[in-house]
């Protein structure tokens, strides 16, 4: 029972921290932080099931989150007119041909009885041929599509469906890619796997940045539809005006608080749903098996557990969860900006959340997500305050003082590094340690 009290106490203090922001800064900011905290927690849940339960190092969070974002575009943006006239079908055909050439070369690799040298040569030519054939087919339709009103569209567009559908689809898309990545790289040792997943996630981001026909690249996709009402519409509703009178705050602020609150409610529901599923999974025989594999692969293998398949399974599930969170994040932002996907913010920060919260414990991951995101956002003003306190006695025009004040924002990187190092050294089990079952 001690554990439960400990968890409740931690969550309570977290909510008090956020409430402090509400009272002293603004409720708008507090809700923004809260929403992003939830998304971060979901991402760290995805990593926790991989690292905490199965010992798989996945540094590809950034890529899966971006795939979730891509699902937003594909599902909910209106389709661009005339793309089919411009030959969108040829792009599909070209990509299918390339995939076929790769699958055929894999088939040659696995099934044919040729010597290794011949296999290398055949596969090399198969893939090169497939690639150039694809380029030959898709190059001109891509040009045509990117030329359709490049300032506004210039990409395929989407299916014009409600955006909520894009969340599970984002999860599916991430799961699909995770299956391919896992199939090829899960056999690697842990640090190679880390580097490989990091590299693959960078490749995904590069594709999203540069393939304008798919995601508009660095031109960004703006104005994604929303699952919640718009502020402007709310401002003319009579019940909103009532609330304005009741709380005595401007109507623009109350409408944006309502929008954020409705996001919070949806996100909270999803977080609780995923948490419940993961808790059930952890308590089930499946979860016991995963932990057995994590703790001793050799003996788990001797017990007849198929380690490769299990690893692939958990890799796909965790990545799907990250994909869902990534889709939610893009919906919340209202735009898809490939440039913002940075490994520091998406991959490494999430890892810090999992480690600080306590790897192997789902509640730990959630509190880690809340706490680290909170400090990631708030350490900027805190750092500024701290620096201005210690430099208060230096006269106003001093070069050192102005330099320090200018760069105070970067204290947060140092701060995050310190938290991670201190946790790993003195409390490697994290805030809420894994439950011994």
């Amino acid at each position, binding site marked *: 029972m001690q554990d439960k009290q400990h968890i409740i106490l931690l969550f309570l203090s977290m909510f008090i921290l956020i409430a402090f922001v509400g009272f002293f800064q603004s409720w708008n900011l507090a809700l923004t932080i809260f929403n992003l905290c939830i998304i971060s927690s979901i991402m760290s849940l995805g990593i926790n099931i991989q690292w905490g339960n199965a010992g798989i190092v996945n540094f590809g969070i950034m890529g899966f989150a971006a795939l979730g974002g891509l699902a937003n575009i594909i599902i909910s943006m209106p389709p661009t007119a005339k793309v089919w006239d411009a030959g969108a079908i040829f792009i599909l055909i070209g990509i299918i041909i390339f995939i076929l050439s790769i699958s055929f070369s894999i088939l040659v690799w696995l099934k044919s009885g040729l010597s290794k040298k011949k296999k290398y040569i055949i596969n090399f030519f198969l893939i090169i041929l497939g690639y150039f054939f694809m380029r030959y087919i898709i190059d001109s339709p891509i040009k045509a599509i990117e030329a359709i009103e490049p300032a506004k569209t210039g990409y395929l567009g989407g299916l014009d469906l409600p955006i909520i559908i894009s969340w599970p689809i984002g999860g599916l898309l991430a799961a699909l890619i995770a299956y391919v990545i896992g199939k090829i790289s899960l056999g*690697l040792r*842990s640090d190679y796997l880390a580097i490989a997943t990091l*590299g693959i996630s960078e490749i995904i981001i590069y594709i999203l940045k540069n393939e304008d026909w798919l995601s508009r690249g660095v031109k960004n996709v703006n104005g994604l539809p929303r699952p919640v009402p718009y502020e402007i519409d709310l401002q003319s509703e009579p019940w909103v005006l009532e609330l304005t009178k009741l709380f005595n705050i401007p109507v623009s602020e109350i409408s944006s608080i309502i929008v954020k609150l409705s996001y919070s409610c949806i996100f909270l529901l999803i977080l609780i749903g995923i948490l419940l599923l993961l808790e059930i999974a952890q308590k089930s025989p499946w979860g016991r098996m995963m932990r057995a594999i994590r703790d001793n692969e050799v003996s788990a293998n001797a017990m007849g557990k198929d380690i490769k398949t299990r690893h692939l399974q958990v890799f796909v599930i965790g990545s799907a969860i990250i994909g869902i969170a990534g889709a939610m994040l893009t919906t919340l932002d209202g735009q898809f900006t490939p440039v913002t996907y940075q490994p520091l913010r998406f991959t490494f920060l999430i890892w810090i959340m999992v480690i600080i919260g306590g790897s192997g414990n789902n509640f730990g991951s959630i509190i880690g997500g809340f706490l680290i995101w909170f400090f990631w956002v708030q350490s900027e003003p805190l750092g500024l305050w701290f620096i201005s306190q210690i430099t208060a006695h230096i006269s106003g025009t001093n070069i050192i003082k102005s330099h320090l004040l200018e760069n105070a924002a970067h204290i947060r990187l140092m701060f995050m590094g310190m938290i991670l190092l201190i946790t*790993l*050294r003195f409390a490697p089990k994290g805030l809420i340690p894994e439950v011994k079952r």
Partner: protein
Amino acid sequence: MEFLNSFILITNYIIIPGLTYGSQLALGALGITIVYTVLRFSNFAHGEFMSFGTMSTILLTWVFIDSNIKFGTFPTAIIVLPFSIIFTIIYCLLVDKFVFKFYRQQKSKSVIVLIVSIGVMFFTGGLIRFIIGPGDKNFMDGERFILKAKDFKMLTGLDEGLTIKSTQGVTIILTILLVILLFWFLNKTKTGKSMRAYSDNQELALLSGINPERIVLITWIITGTLACVAGTLYGLDKSYKPFTYLHLVLPIFAAAIVGGVGNPIGAIIGGFVISFSELLITFAYKKFFFYILPDNFLPDGLLQILSTDYKIAVSFIMLVLVLLIKPTGIYKGKIIE
């Protein structure tokens, strides 16, 4: 003549930039490989160590320029390099003392130390941005070119120009010197031999009276030197921005793995494989074929395999390919469980 022109074109756009970038990657990959073999973890903080070295160089360069110490047309950054190397080594040793030493004594798993190195990466990155700011810094002074395109054309009468920047010359020469020194140290000196013995079999090395603390000290001295030189050369060539060094870690890891982690020769080869494949795959061959093909055979388009935007992605693609086909790399490296 046409053939010569095409040859100069390739030299100018692929061979010289490839050698330069390859040298920078090779020096970085050497640092990662040495930490990996001796201290047995993948050091994600290496990029930030390089950045730290570059920052020290920049600060010292400013000091030197302010006090009017000049060495003709030679870049000041190279003159201050020995001092900034010392700063980088001190920083590496401090990090080791306060962070990595604990995990070495605990004999932690390499994955845990990898995550620890991410903590170091965050901290160092923040420290650097705090000291020098996140902006772009250009600290190249002195003569910019060894050979200018115009002079080359005048000299030879060819249509294609050949440019060699002084940063490119300095990079290649310094890399050759450093690599020779490193291999001499590893293969010929007693300390170098004991270091290799320690990395091959720790227990046995301890039994034969090798002092592990001394080996660790020397490892960090070598790593700090390599990181500082690699970072400074990259910064001189491209211009320094703290942000880019985080992204440099991955191509460097790619170089180390492609060559075979744990093998110094592999790290060097890997660096050049990565740099040349980046350039060869993203080069537009149109002009090249313009010289060697008759006019009516010339195809349309730029004749580019991948657009230049994918330049860095090529190194990741190479990395993934090597991991798939031959995880041990070109030269069979050491595998640490």
